[in-house]
């Protein structure tokens, strides 16, 4: 069990570093979606399903949509 948790934490770190490193902001948004996806699973492992539900609702749908609207109004590529 703890092996799976450490693997998931590693994946979350990889996703976070990728979100910081991408110059294409759309790809950064997608990587951030992966990070919140795995964060929900980790809350689930910590026996907090209500927090996981809030994280799922906010992270999966709302953040992605709001960030997409934001880069629609501004630039897609980082200078």
């Amino acid at each position, binding site marked *: 069990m703890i092996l799976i948790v450490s693997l998931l934490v590693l994946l979350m770190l*990889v996703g976070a570093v990728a979100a910081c490193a991408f110059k294409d902001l759309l790809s950064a948004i*997608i990587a951030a979606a992966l990070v919140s996806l795995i964060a*929900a*699973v980790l809350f689930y492992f910590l026996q907090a399903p209500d927090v996981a539900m809030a994280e799922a609702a906010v992270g999966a749908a709302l953040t992605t949509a709001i960030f997409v609207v934001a880069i629609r109004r501004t630039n897609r590529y980082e200078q």
Partner: protein
Amino acid sequence: MPGQGQSSSYSKAGDFFLAMFIVLSLYMDTPIFIGLSFSEMTWMALAVAGIVLCTLRLLKGPTSPDRAVAVDTAATVTTAFLVLLGSVFGQQFYLDVALVYAVLTFIGSVAIARFLEGGF
């Protein structure tokens, strides 16, 4: 003495495996691990391997549609994984999280697709 180097290298490898074994058995002794059967371990390992492959495609994908496809697949695998975890923990309330996931994750994919088409 002949064979001393060999025996020392052998003991090094043996020490390494012994340490690995001790670490693994320590992991197995944690109380959360006791209720798991072999089949449950296999299911969870397969699902996590799926998430790992999707992450690799996310890092590698040449264009942004590739990355969106990878995260969409990872979301479906995660929904199934949450239901499996609910079965392992054995509480029905845990299924609601998977329900929220099944309803909501496709909104993110559709938003990204609309942006790529030039919509909004």
